[in-house]
């Protein structure tokens, strides 16, 4: 955006690497500004301009962040994790390994938003924060599923072995996501009539516009967060490699006795 002061030249010359002191870049600054503008618009339209819904009242406003964050984490974030994991297993691409991890972490944050806003919507609509609604229940289980994935990524072990385990987990977790969603839906459909379905909501034009704004705002925010998270993961990866090099250099400098000592 024009208001941004970005001293970075666009070309990939040595001056660019000199200027890097953070995970920000021209792209993320523009993306960040656009996200902020769209979030401001979302707040204006979602909370002020759009009318309350006939049946649900004002609580329909939660949908403008609930549904978009569900879309972002389930359809974008965890799909990136799945694709990244598959590519990593095929060609050991560091980029896709780190990307899979970055998308999963931001995805879990958005899944958390989906849960919280879903429960807050349920209280005025169903009279309780928690019902054993299929989507709510399966979202809660999926949340823990991906927390497990992130826990594996944080393990203190050989980086290559860890990436491999994480990639396998990233693939199976996606399959589990689908299994959990369908089995829970099946379970509930057998024992209970359909509860008030959020998809039945009647939206007029300003409400629809608020909803589209929500999708735009949260998707751009997601992209911004993932780029930053990826760059952090890259920095950590480089640091880890550097420390390994240092350790090896130290050990070799100690000579053969040092090797014999630490080699066991």
């Amino acid at each position, binding site marked *: 955006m024009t208001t941004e002061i970005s001293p970075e030249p666009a070309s*990939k010359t040595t001056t660019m*690497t*000199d200027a*890097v*002191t*953070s*995970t*920000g870049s021209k792209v993320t600054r523009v993306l960040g500004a656009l996200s902020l503008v769209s*979030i401001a618009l979302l*707040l204006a339209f*979602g*909370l002020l301009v759009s009318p*309350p819904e006939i049946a*649900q*009242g*004002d*609580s*329909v*406003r*939660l949908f403008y*962040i*609930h549904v978009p*964050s569900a879309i972002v984490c389930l359809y974008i974030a965890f799909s990136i994790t799945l694709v990244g994991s598959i590519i990593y297993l095929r060609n050991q691409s560091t*980029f896709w390994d780190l990307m899979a991890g970055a998308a999963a972490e931001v995805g879990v*944050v958005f899944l*958390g*938003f989906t849960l*919280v*806003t879903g429960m*807050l*919507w349920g*209280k*005025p609509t169903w009279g309780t924060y928690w019902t054993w609604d299929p989507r709510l229940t399966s979202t809660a289980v999926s949340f823990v599923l991906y927390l497990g994935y992130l826990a594996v990524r944080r393990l203190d072990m050989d980086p290559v072995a860890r990436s491999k385990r994480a990639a396998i987990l990233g693939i199976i977790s996606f399959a589990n996501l689908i299994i959990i969603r369908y089995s829970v839906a099946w379970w509930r459909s057998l024992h209970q009539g359909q509860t008030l379905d959020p998809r039945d909501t009647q939206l007029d034009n300003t409400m629809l516009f608020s909803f589209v704004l929500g999708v735009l705002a949260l998707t751009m*925010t997601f992209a*911004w*967060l993932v780029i*930053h*998270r*990826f*760059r*952090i993961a*890259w*920095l*950590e990866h*480089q*640091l880890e490699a*550097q420390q390994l090099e240092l350790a090896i250099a130290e050990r070799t400098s100690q000579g053969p006795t040092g090797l014999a000592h630490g080699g066991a």
Partner: protein
Amino acid sequence: MGWEYVVPGYLIVFGVLAIYAVSLIRRGRRLSEQLPPEKRRFLD
């Protein structure tokens, strides 16, 4: 009706987003300092 649930929902979501974003930026700055400049970006 419903505002008492809408407002906390928006506060939680955008509050957490803000905290998460700031923490990412600070983490990025801190980690960048520990590496030589040519290693700070994924360029491939």
